């Protein structure tokens, strides 16, 4: 990745023709307009969520507020058991992200640092796996999950089906394609001489992996961890298909429950939907740079 500063020095001097400032103003007006337009749906959701249902029922949604409060948020939080669903999301997202990173780091290390015959095939297998539409996998996966027993301490259904482990497993298997692709590109930029020197010094391969290559990949890990956390947290489809009981679902899928339960109260649904988005928004604002570089160093995500 080239640093942004590298290319931006000379090219945007005000043009010699003298129409520079006006064009900049025009551009700002246009961009600000578009940006505002893009925020309208989100702002509308925020506005709706802040208004009591009684107010909107009486005066309509497109009206000036008589009062604004966080009541819908506290209601959604308490009535629909959101803390529980958030906890489910944590239980799925954290191990899935860590597992994905570990698995894909191992595969990327293998294909980028050793000249074996099947490297390209292996890399393609992983990358293409991530591009398969989820619906192509779902029926056999569902049957597989019904066939695989788990001990009682792992799943009260005694099956991979209807257990958090099953969701973690498919996330890891599916997402490691993308991360392998990104990490192998990244590892190729690490000079081979570094690990060869270590080899001459007698370091074993596992030490090269854990003590040399992994620490050098820290920026890529940061980017991928941010990106994958948001993707896995946001995922909707796997839990919907592979978890039968609603109370084991992560918060994103559980939104559907909320919709069913409180269909008549859009204010409450808006509050619930916004609340599920808060963690991703926080992660995004805190780690914006990592997020974007994760998206763009690989860019293979379909």
């Amino acid at each position, binding site marked *: 990745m080239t640093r942004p500063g590298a*290319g*931006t*020095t000379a*090219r945007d001097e005000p043009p010699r023709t003298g129409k520079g400032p006006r064009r900049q103003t025009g551009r700002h007006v246009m961009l600000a307009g*578009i*940006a505002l337009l*893009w925020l309208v749906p*989100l702002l509308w959701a925020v506005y709706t969520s802040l208004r009591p249902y009684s107010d909107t029922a009486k005066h309509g*949604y*497109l009206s000036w507020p008589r009062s604004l409060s966080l009541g819908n948020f506290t209601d959604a939080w308490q009535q629909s058991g959101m803390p529980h669903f958030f906890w489910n999301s944590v239980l799925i997202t954290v191990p899935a992200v860590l597992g994905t990173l570990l*698995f894909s780091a*191992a*595969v990327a290390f*293998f294909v980028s640092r050793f000249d*074996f*015959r099947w490297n390209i095939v*292996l*890399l393609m297998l*992983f*990358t*293409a*796996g991530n591009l*398969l*539409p*989820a*619906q*192509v*996998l*779902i029926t*056999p996966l*569902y*049957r*597989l999950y019904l066939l695989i027993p788990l001990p009682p301490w792992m799943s009260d259904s005694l099956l991979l089906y209807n257990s958090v482990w099953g969701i973690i497993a498919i996330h*890891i*298997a599916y997402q*490691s394609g993308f991360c392998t692709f990104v990490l192998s590109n990244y590892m190729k930029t690490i000079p081979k001489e570094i690990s060869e020197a270590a*080899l*001459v010094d007698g370091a*074993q*391969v596992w030490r090269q992996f854990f003590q040399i290559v992994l620490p050098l990949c820290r920026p890529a890990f940061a980017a991928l961890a941010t990106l994958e956390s*948001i993707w896995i*947290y*946001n995922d*909707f489809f796997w839990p919907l298909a592979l978890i039968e009981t609603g109370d084991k679902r992560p918060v*994103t899928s559980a*939104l559907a429950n909320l*919709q069913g339960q409180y269909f008549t109260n*859009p204010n409450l*649904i808006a509050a619930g*939907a916004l609340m*599920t*988005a808060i963690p*991703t928004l926080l992660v*995004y604002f805190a780690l*914006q740079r990592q*997020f974007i570089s994760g998206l*763009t160093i690989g*860019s*293979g995500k*379909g």
Partner: protein
Amino acid sequence: MSSTPVTPAAPGTPDVPRRPRTHPPRRPRRLGPGDRLFLTVAIGIPLAALLFFVWLPALASLGLSFTTWDGIDLADIHWIGLDNYQQIFTNYPPFWPAVRHNVIWLLFTALLPTPFGIFLAYQLDRKIRFTRVYQTAIFLPMVLSLAVVGFIWEIIYNPDTGLLNGLLSAAGSSHHIDWLGNADLNLWAVLVASGWRHTGYIMILYLAGLKGFDPALKEAAALDGANGRQTFLRVVFPAMKPVNIIILVVTVMESLRAFDIVYVLGGGVGSKPGMELLSLLITDNIIGESSHIGYGSALAVVLLLVSLAAIGTFLVQTFRKEDR
């Protein structure tokens, strides 16, 4: 890539030192047994997980597409050859509408949000103030889950309480439009919501590509008297080929895979008239009371084959350079 300039050292075969020994051999020693064990485990577990959870189901879907099965008892799987496919193509009413909608989805996305995202990236790739603010606002929808995006648009499109009808009636129109219920409108309503998200994605991808663009090329074009549009179309755009390919693949894949947003905006009950998509038809057939697994799988294979065209293009473009 390979450290040996003569032959790309047929990997896997033992390294017989046929080369003149002017240089010390690059591999000081072969991998020891411990190394081999470590590598086997490190590659074996992820590979096993990938094959078991992803590729095995994909192949099984292919197999099931030639059968008829209600999804309950494994003994009830019956081989029926190509019947499912024949049925789908000739005698399954929602199939061709779904194909048409997927094509509309692709064309819409490729013709509006994608170029618009590129345009925005080109505008933002200058030293202007607030560029970060603009970027964040336009990219923000990408951070939200498709389910949340669905709910947000639900409160815009709702015929009774939504923003859109509210604005329309405030503007004096007495039309009461059921945006998501009207089979002629709902696909477009969903496409607007999806485009809202897609634009920011493309913008960020293209912006990253532009950061690596050699400004000298642009200056040369300016010296040759090219105006802004000519510079972009003749110089910048062609030079951005790798990013363009990624954007093409992303656009095609997102259009084929579209599911969540339609599912939520359709009320979470499978496909609705006017909003049939391949991904939803598959779900219709494999989930629910009377599941037609063979049928759903055949639909999935159709989707897979179309996707493979995009996946193949991407893989060939990506790996061609390395495979030399």
